[in-house]
């Protein structure tokens, strides 16, 4: 696998991640990690990998925070809460 290909791939993955695809960023990290130390690898790749890692973590944090809010607040939101919920939870 040529360094340029890696660069191109991780670049694509990195920009693709902005389509609400943090998992793609994670994927990018998994993808580049094994070869992060290749001498002929352009430093950009490492930057992309780093950024992807950070961004994916951020995204996941954001969504888990949202989920926490939802779980705790949905009952107070009334109809909105119900429409947001996929399967209404019985008994609570």
């Amino acid at each position, binding site marked *: 696998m040529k360094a340029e290909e890696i660069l191109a791939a991780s670049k694509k993955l990195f920009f693709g991640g902005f389509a609400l695809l943090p998992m793609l960023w994670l994927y990018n990290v998994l993808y580049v990690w094994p070869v992060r130390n290749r001498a002929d690898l352009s430093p950009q790749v490492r930057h992309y990998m780093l950024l992807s890692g950070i961004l994916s973590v951020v995204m996941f944090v954001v969504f888990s925070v949202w989920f926490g809010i939802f779980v705790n607040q949905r*009952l107070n939101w*009334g*109809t909105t809460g*119900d429409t947001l919920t996929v399967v*209404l939870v*019985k*008994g*609570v």
Partner: protein
Amino acid sequence: MNVVCYLASAQDTYDTIYNDIGSLPCVRLLNATGFVGCQSMGAASGVLYRADTLEDIKQFANDDRLGNQYTVVIPYWLLSSSNVDILKSSKRLAAILAVVNGTDPAHAVAARPSTVISPDTTCPNCEFGLYANTPNQYQWNPTGSGLLFEQFDFPIYALNTMDTRNTMSYASVMQAVNRNRDKGYRDYPLKSLQFHSFMWGAQDTGACLRKGWCTPVGGASVWSTPSTNISYTDEKPIVVITAAMDSRSLFHDLTLGVESSVAGMVTVLAVAEALSRSTIPLDTMSKHIVYTLFTGEAWGFSGSQRFVQDITSSPIQCETPPTSGSGCAYPFFSDLEFQRLNPAKIEAILEVGQIAGMGGAGGNPTLYAHVDNIQESVSTTLLNQVVQIGANGSTTVPPAGIPVQAASSDGVKRGLPPSSSMSFLKSRGNIPTVVLTDFQKQMSALTNHDQDDSWNTPNTINLIQQAASVISKTAWLQAQGVSDSAAMTPAQTEAIASIQVDAGLVQELLGCLSLNYSCPLVDRYLNVTASPSPPARLPHYSGTLYSQSQPFPIFAWSFLANMTSVKNTTSPTPRVTGCSSKPATVQCASKEYCVGDQCIVSLTRYHDAYGVGLAMNSKAEYYIKDASKPVWTESTWDPIGLRMFDVTSPGSQIAELMTGLALTLVSSGVVWYSRRFLKKTLKED
């Protein structure tokens, strides 16, 4: 090789492990602001523990040698908020089994405390009553504990030896709990009980209805009139004779309410029977007589309020007529005949409240006539009439010696006790109204009580008979337009004398409607004994709307239809009989009903009864229209049940786990070591 397989023989294994038990659950109900009743998210299970007295409960709470989770078996009368708090404080309460009736001495009737405490509030349904907005209204049920309005986050089930199945369950539970007690609750395996009591509904009626996990509490009221030609426009006034048909209690399967509702219902039915004897046909009188028996009264006067709301809002604009039958699809009405009643014309209301005489306040039984204290003047004449007739009756007709007093005879004007009349008076305050009860100051302590399941003959029967005769005569005089019995034509004197309440009928009705539904009387109308398992004691809980059959409304309908139908006196041709026994040959004409194997013409109708705060939209879904009015709904459940089984001690369970882990670790260690050993031997060789 040891297998217990799923389908093929799972059942017998299941039976060897588990013992299913007939269950009388306490369920969750919701109103505009929250929910009441019992709920357990998971399946609660606990070792059976027996507590017969308050001391036992305290000891359970303080005994630190006890283990994890317990199902406490207590007598019903120990089930109070304070005791429950004590039990919960122990942190090891899984569920409660309340024994309402039991053969064990600790649960026998003899063991019951002398003073019963009503589980209802200190003024039942008053927040929906006539005086809801008046400051410090009179509390009719001062001893009420409000247990019905508590929230329990654990299952509470009842045990009651009311029929063979429940007696068996009771027996097995008692046997198990006694064995546990003999083992000191420490010598495992102990008997444990598991409860499934998962209620879908949560928060309040609004949210629950939105999610479709609740059904309105309610049923069918019944109204009936002898004057089949009644119309909205004929200027004839109306005399309403009314009572409630349902009551409530913690365990809906046990709800009976002899005092709370049955006696009143019996009275009205007896009145209808007595008046049907009148030699002067009722439909020819100057006023209409209308009998109303309301369901859902225990739930904020749902039945009466809805009835009043509907008749006052008539004529109804039916937007979408029904595809078949009578009534209207939207706005929904199962029947529209009620539009023939003109609320403006209601000129007198005679209501029967609690008159079983089970108040516990001893003394010689007396009937009290309550009137509204706001517009007292309008009711004065009616009140006097009732009292006077009561006085006459006590002397002339049997039963002798049950006087009828004005409730305000002691000079205190308390107004009306919680009653259906309030619904009428709320819409129009100036209707002469008298509510006849057996109490003066304070409702019976058995109000909405699970143990309100008995009466004492002949006392109760006399009371009912007296009330019935008083009401029938008053209604008759009212209908005749005669203010004073002194000024009566001979015909009228002869006619009123013909109105006699049959004590035998009263007794029979009482028996049929409380303890044995498949009695000859009911059977004559509904042929219940034909069913494979004839019902005996049926709950008087109104149930949820349109969901289950309504035995008491159905019977009331048939009985009233029969009593109010056009009798031979006016129509010489005898009734056609055999419409139900020989349906092939005998068919009733249109507009005729087949009641008790007879084709009759009658104006007797059901009327939907559910909280007036609720309404049904065009998509046949219920929603809250007015949260200030009653909006009681019952939550949907998962299948409910109890099962009993052995459990091993927590200690031994831990031991088992430890054994397992140890075994695993050791064996893996051995494997690892032996592999290394083998390798070494190979290398050495």
